[in-house]
């Protein structure tokens, strides 16, 4: 494979764009975690209307492609005069999307905690919120780490979709370089290699945590 017109400047441009991929990933994860935590609370709430709201939200968002959410937030809102910078639009769309998944993952972890832990806490006169905060969540966090880190890998890869609304992250940077030198195999191979370098350590970490957890539960 010849490097052709691919220069060191192109390589540096790609490397720099990784920073934007990481920034969008972090934004999506942090905002999605806040939304997901709220949805998890709503999902296990004693109030039926809150549970109902969370179920409808999660089902709807999980049934819509992220790309369409990006289009709605970026193009859809601009028609009504609200044109957001592409980073903000991508951040909002991904928050909406990620919170639906994290909310569901975390609800599962909370519900996997043994019922007697709730009962014992109740009998020590803890309120429901105290029980969650002091007894249930600290135990559920351990269980939730492997799937949460696993989903973080998905988030990093999903940020590539933000390229279609003009946000210059790793994928978009690759497109821009390819448009000038037309060496798609080399350019997108490199882009793919960079994503792999970001995701693989996280996948392994998630796997290692899961193995440890299984040993502890045996």
């Amino acid at each position, binding site marked *: 494979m010849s490097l052709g017109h691919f220069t060191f400047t192109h390589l540096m441009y790609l490397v720099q764009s990784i920073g934007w991929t990481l920034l969008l990933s972090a934004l999506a994860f942090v905002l999605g975690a806040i939304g997901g935590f709220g949805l998890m609370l709503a999902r296990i709430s004693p109030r039926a209307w809150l549970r109902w709201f969370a179920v409808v939200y999660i089902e709807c968002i999980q049934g819509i492609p992220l790309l369409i959410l990006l289009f709605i937030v970026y193009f859809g809102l601009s028609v009504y005069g609200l044109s957001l910078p592409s980073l903000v639009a991508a951040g909002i769309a991904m928050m909406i999307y990620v919170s639906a998944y994290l909310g569901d993952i975390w609800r599962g972890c909370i519900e996997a905690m043994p019922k007697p832990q709730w009962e014992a806490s109740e*009998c020590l006169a803890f309120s429901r919120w105290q029980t969650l905060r002091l007894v249930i969540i600290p135990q559920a966090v351990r269980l939730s780490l492997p799937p949460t880190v696993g989903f973080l890998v998905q988030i990093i890869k999903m940020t590539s979709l933000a390229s279609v609304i003009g946000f210059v992250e790793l994928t978009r940077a690759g497109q821009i370089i390819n448009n000038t030198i037309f060496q798609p195999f080399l350019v997108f191979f490199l882009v793919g290699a960079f994503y792999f370098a970001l995701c693989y350590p996280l996948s392994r970490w998630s796997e290692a945590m899961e193995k440890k957890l299984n040993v502890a539960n045996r």
Partner: protein
Amino acid sequence: MSPIVKLDHVYKSFGSNQVLKGVSFEVAKGEMIAIIGASGSGKSTALRCIDRLEVIDKGTIEVCGIRVDSPNVDLKQLRLEVGIVFQSYNLFPHLTVQENIMLALRHVKKQSRGEAADVAIRVLDQVGLKAKADAYPEQLSGGQQQRVAIARSLAMSPKVMLFDEVTSALDPQLTGEVLRVMEDLAAGGMTMLLVTHEMAFAKRVADRIIYMHQGTVWETGPGEMLDAPKTPELHAFLNNGL
């Protein structure tokens, strides 16, 4: 003096299965009462109703002047008066023994860290486990875990303590160490109500024994009633146990 716990014609069903059919009894201050009976006789359910872990269908339950059957009962107040220990210990696995005891003292009773730590050490000493303060529950034997659970409940200084088959998961040796702790508590004047299969212990330590059969109080009396059961049901129950 008014009783600490008073059940009056309590009925409770799970679906079509009627578990309690008009249960009435009283526990006076400082009394230790053992409830015995076959599986399914409703003894554990009666105990759970007292701490409102189950809501009764009919009748009244009063604990330290609190109407437990009232729909707007102050659950926090009730649970500060009542301590309960379960068969499965239910310690918090992510906290050390001392932290297990301190958690409710700090967050429910709003004690300072130092205060709560002192109380924890005092109750651990009482159950003979001061040396295990920094251990995690999984590092303890079943008997030790159960003694920590008793200490955790005791630390809240309840007016009455309920024990739901607390030795049923333990081998005879570990059962002994838990029963000794309970005997000390009784000697110290704690009001106690326990559901148990330990007949010898019940006979020796309890002020009164309640024999439950098919959801009702079938026979009640002092420990000696086990030597001379009045009803054929208690007679059969005691013989099957041997």
